[in-house]
């Protein structure tokens, strides 16, 4: 008989090892799934994890995409991880991402066609503000009235999608666009274009911001009192209260930061890779970032790596559609499975597995 024995404290080794266990399990089960769909599992796994970086034919195109896709994922996941550490569940990052993009774009387009160098920074500020305000709604409802932040932040995603639809076909629509929905293309407006810092690498300003966020979050969590308070509120809420940590302040800070970072990711996306504010520009990064945060163990460095890995599966997923005619949803399932296996493997962090004879177990 197998029994679980609680460890006195979480195992350090397993904390770092379980993501790899989860990745391996996902590859095995995902491979079996691909096999059932009539695709060679080894070829599928290679197409997802190897070809985007090393294939001689198209890696020169897909390699820059790695940073383009990892940037927003890391930026959002860093914000989410702060809240998750404190036991605050903002799962509406997708909505904050959308509102950030809409607000930032609106602020910029108000000055079209100015070529001032302040346009792009202004858009970034308004993008952050938009995401911050959208996250403040569940945060304030939570602190003032005790409303469940999970449900409110998620409901606001659907509201944000409706605002996006209105913006794309209404107040942000390109006046020269012959009535088609979608804003002006920021790639054609130099003052607002989020260009590659080093051309051809996919390294745009948003990716740089993501790297800065990783370093800042690392410093915050390890060196700053606020980081300690965040950790304490998650691990021992009562102790945190006695130590003078204000739970409301924690909620406002964590939700606000994650909203602002998600909004920032949104405005970087529409001014760069996406180019226009339009229905469906949001590719679900806000939800995938939840997986990234957990896979990265809510640790900034871990999130950096997890974000790159998740970006790889996005690109690999696109390749499997092109090369192996696999449906787009397969990769979505693959990413979901990764989170599932990770949560399952986490049992090893907190528990020791003991094999005992059933007779002894009964006694």
């Amino acid at each position, binding site marked *: 008989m197998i029994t*679980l*024995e*609680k460890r006195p404290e979480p195992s350090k080794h397993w904390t770092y090892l379980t993501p790899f266990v989860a990745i391996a399990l996902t590859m095995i089960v995902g491979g079996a799934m691909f096999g059932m769909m009539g695709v060679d599992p080894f070829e599928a796994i290679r197409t997802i994890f190897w070809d985007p970086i090393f294939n001689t034919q198209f890696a020169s195109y897909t390699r820059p995409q790695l940073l383009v896709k990892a940037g927003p994922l890391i930026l959002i996941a860093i914000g989410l991880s702060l809240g998750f550490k404190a036991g605050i*569940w903002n*799962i509406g990052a997708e909505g904050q991402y959308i509102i950030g993009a809409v607000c930032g774009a609106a602020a910029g387009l108000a000055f079209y066609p100015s070529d001032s160098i302040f346009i792009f920074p202004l858009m970034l500020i308004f993008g952050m503000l938009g995401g911050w305000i959208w996250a403040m709604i569940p945060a304030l*409802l939570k602190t003032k*009235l*005790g*409303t*469940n932040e*999970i*449900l*409110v932040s*998620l*409901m*606001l995603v*659907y*509201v944000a999608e*409706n*605002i996006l*639809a*209105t913006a794309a076909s209404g107040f942000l629509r390109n006046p020269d666009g012959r009535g088609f929905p979608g804003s002006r293309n920021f790639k054609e407006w130099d003052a607002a274009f989020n260009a590659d810092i080093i051309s051809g690498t996919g390294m745009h300003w948003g990716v740089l911001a993501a790297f800065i966020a990783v370093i800042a979050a690392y410093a915050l969590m390890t060196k700053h009192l606020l980081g300690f308070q965040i950790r304490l509120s998650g691990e021992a809420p009562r102790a945190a209260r006695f130590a003078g940590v204000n739970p409301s302040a924690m909620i406002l800070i964590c939700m606000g930061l994650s909203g602002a970072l998600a909004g920032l990711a949104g405005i970087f996306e529409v001014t760069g890779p996406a180019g226009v504010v339009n229905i469906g520009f949001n590719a679900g990064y806000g*939800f995938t970032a*939840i*997986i990234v945060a*957990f896979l990265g163990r809510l640790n900034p460095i871990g999130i950096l790596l997890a974000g790159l890995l998740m970006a790889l599966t996005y690109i690999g997923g696109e390749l499997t559609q092109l090369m192996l005619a696999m*449906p*787009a*949803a*397969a*990769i*979505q*399932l*693959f*990413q*979901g*499975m990764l*989170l*599932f296996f990770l*949560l*399952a493997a*986490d*049992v090893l962090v*907190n*528990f020791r597995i003991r094999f005992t004879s059933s007779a002894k177990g009964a006694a």
Partner: protein
Amino acid sequence: MDLSSINPILLVASIMVSATPILLAAIGEMVVEKAGVLNLGVEGMMITGAVVGFAIAVNTGTPGLGFVAAACAGAVLSLTFAFLTQYLLSNQVATGLGLTLVGLGLSSLIGKPYEGIKSPTLPKLDIPILSDIPVIGPMLLSHDIMVYFSLALVAAVWAFLKYTRAGLILRAVGESADSAHALGYKVVNVRVMAIMFGGACAGLGGAYLSLVRVPQWTEGMTAGAGWIALAIVVFASWRAGRVAVGAYLFGGITVLQLNLQAAGAQVPVALLSASPYLITILVLVIISAKGAHGAPAALGRAFHASN
């Protein structure tokens, strides 16, 4: 705007149809939460039920079989959640989210070949005499069987929790898992069964969407219905009767906003489309402001019989 184009008899009839999927999912989730487990994967189980029910109904030509298959699919999917949270003691919030992500991916994968197909749908019951009563007949008494099944299920859950021994044990597990364990009840078994019941109900709710309400399969068709079901459980303060009231209220809002859109109301369409979500938030705010919670005391807490 032409309000006279809205027929009150049809309005009430369509409210009952649009409330049923949320009601099924919410009553299932209420039982799960009564056992002290928070399963945030309702949306994922619902959409899996929707696609599996649809596929089976199309292939067999029998919608009834579709519903059975959807309930099984929801229960099987919820079993993964049960295994992770009850045996491997994973975080319930994160695991529920994972379940939703898995369900969304799985459903669009299964559903790809079924896009744009029409399914056989449930026949409307045509009860002699009763269905012919003017006004009340077409309004309340000539729906398909699942509408009445969902209401009967609410009554059954209410009676089960209030009057049966098993219901009492389930509530004890949800209020204090440790005490229930000390009394010799199998906490984990009770919770696993509750989770599977919730999964089956969510599956049925999803199948009702794809087989009766729409009736078609489109990717992401639940559009947050599972999350609204979760909100309704909070709104209902974990009481079966109020779950039904909540679901019908939301059914009403959904139908009313669709009718207003059709009637050409002078309100932006986006605002009307967003109204079910906005009203969900509003309701959550009002409930939390009132402070009358009634949540099971052990809700969301993992249980491990460590000595």
